[in-house]
Each structure stands twice: as C-alpha cells, then as structure tokens.
C-alpha cells in the first residue's frame, strides 16, 4: 500500500524505464524514417504510443502502486473518449464523402421542359 511518505523504489527502476522509453521513442521515429505506410504504420504508431503512455503512467506516475479506487477513478473515465473518437471519425468520413459529391462536377444537366 502506498503510504503518505511514498514507497521507496531503487533508482535503477527509473533508469530502466527511462532507457525503455528511449528505445520505444526510437522505434516510433523509425516507423517514419523507414517510411512504413498504411495499416502497418498506424498500428505500430499506436502500439508504441500506448506502450510509452502505459510505462509513464504506471511507473513514473506511480499508478501501479496506487489503490484500485484511485486507479479506476482516473483511468476508467477516459474510456468514454473512445466513443467520441468513433463518432467524430464517422462524422468526418461522412463530411468528406458529402464534399466529394457536392463539390464535384455534376453528371446531370437539367433540360428545360418541352411545353
């Protein structure tokens, strides 16, 4: 349990995580430098991003050793953001499609009625 004075971890813990974050950042940079494209690019970007974020939160920010009540109170609400991301992505895609259709050359030219 984390007491008021904080748990004592050896300094080496932080140095190891620091090194790990360096390596993960290097990999992230390599994804761009080596010009990966498409789904491979995006999935690697997301993977390294979540790994780095996870280590920073869990170890640097000490979350791994906190009480479950604090962990859940802080880490569960952002799950709602997944819904926001999904809705806004769908909406953006719809907007893009509408713009393509409406602002492109018409394939229907009206003729006046033959009275």
């Amino acid at each position, binding site marked *: 349990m984390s007491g008021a004075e904080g748990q004592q971890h050896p300094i080496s813990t*932080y140095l190891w995580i620091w090194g790990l974050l360096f390596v993960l950042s290097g990999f992230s940079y390599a*994804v761009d*430098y080596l010009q990966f494209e498409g789904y491979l690019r995006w999935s690697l970007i997301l993977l390294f991003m979540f790994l780095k974020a996870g280590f920073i939160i869990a170890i*640097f920010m000490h979350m791994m050793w906190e009480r479950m*009540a604090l962990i859940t109170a*802080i880490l569960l609400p*952002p799950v709602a953001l997944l819904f926001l991301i999904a809705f806004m*992505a769908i909406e*953006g895609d719809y907007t893009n499609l509408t713009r393509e259709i409406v602002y492109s050359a018409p394939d229907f030219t009206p003729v006046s009625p033959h009275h």
Partner: protein
Amino acid sequence: MANDAVATVAETRAGSVIADWSADKQTFQAPWGKAMMWIFLLSDTFIFSSFLVGYMNVRISSTIPWPIPSEVFALSFGGDPIPLILIAIMTFILITSSGTMAMAVNYGYRQNKKVTVMLMTATALLGASFVGMQAFEWTKLIVDEGVRPWGNPMGAPQFGAAFFMITGFHGLHVSAGVIYLGIIANRVRRGDYDKTGNYETVEIAGLYWHFVDLVWVFIFAFFYLW
C-alpha cells in the same frame, strides 16, 4: 469467526474499491494534494483529447490533402533534409526530463535536499529548452513556410489552426510546468520541507510534469507521425 487463511473482501484489489468508496470520511487514501492533482490531470486529458479529436475530424473531412509532417518538419544541416529530426530531439528531451523528475521525487522521499533540487532544476531546464525548440519550429513555419491558422501553401488550410492550437496549448503547459518546478525546487532548497520531512509536494509536481510528457507522446504519434 474470521478465518485467518482467507483474505477479507477489503484486502482484495476489487474489494478495496468497495471499502474505499463506502468509507465514512474520505474515499481516496492519499494526500488530498495528490488526489486533486490526479483529478485535474483527468480534466486536462479531456481538454487535450477534444483538441486532438477535433484535429482528427478536420483532417478526415478535408478533401484537400493534409501536409506531410515528415516533410514539413524536416531540417537540413547542409545536406539532405532529415525528417522530423527536431521533433525527435524534442521527444528525447521531454522523456529525459521525465526521468530526472522521477528520480527527483525518489531523492525527495530519501530527504536528500541537494540532489532533489539539482534534478528538479535539470528537469526545468530541459523543459525550457523544449519550449525554445518549439518556438523555433513555430517561427520557421510562420516566417519561412507561410503557415497561418487559415491557410498554408502546402495543403489543407486547417493544418495551421490544428498545429498552433495543439502545440500552443501543450507549450503553455510546459512553460507553466517549468515555473511550477522552479517554485517547488526553491522551496526544497530553502528547507521548507525539512521540519515535516514530507516531500509530497515534489511528487505532486512530478505528476504534473509526467502528464506534460504524456500529452507529448500522443501529440507526437497523432500529429507528427500519422
């Protein structure tokens, strides 16, 4: 009646949630400053998320191609332009600053004033250099590349608005953090925490600083790499 071989509900991880939330005085068994900092960071997460989701939306909906970040943010040192080199350096600087901050918190709890102040100062200096590099990046984009919030010669006009808003808010957070760290480091140096031996304030400042690094991890992934 209690069987010593079986843990009570409150001692299990899930059980402790129930025990904490049904406690009669306080929920979070943590210093109030730490709990409040975490809650503030939660709200800040939503703020940055709304900016990033807004950026995602305008980029998806744009029919004009988005400028390619590895080209926009490439720098040449006399030879071929190296993609994203300054951004990579900025990332390493911020990660290093998180490392020095985590160590500062650790030395704080060991009540080692001198090393804590040194590490906090190092963290603040790294943060200040990050802001300096971001300012250089902004200058280059505004003056040399002609990027404005309403348009740019390289692609979708919303690029500038998204870039300046997201990196601007982040840079402001870093700058505020540098000042915050300076104030706390000075208090440590002055011996404000000698009497109680309680260095929680350093840990709380550390939480804020790691958050700033965390946000950059997301900005780096979604804006510069994607």
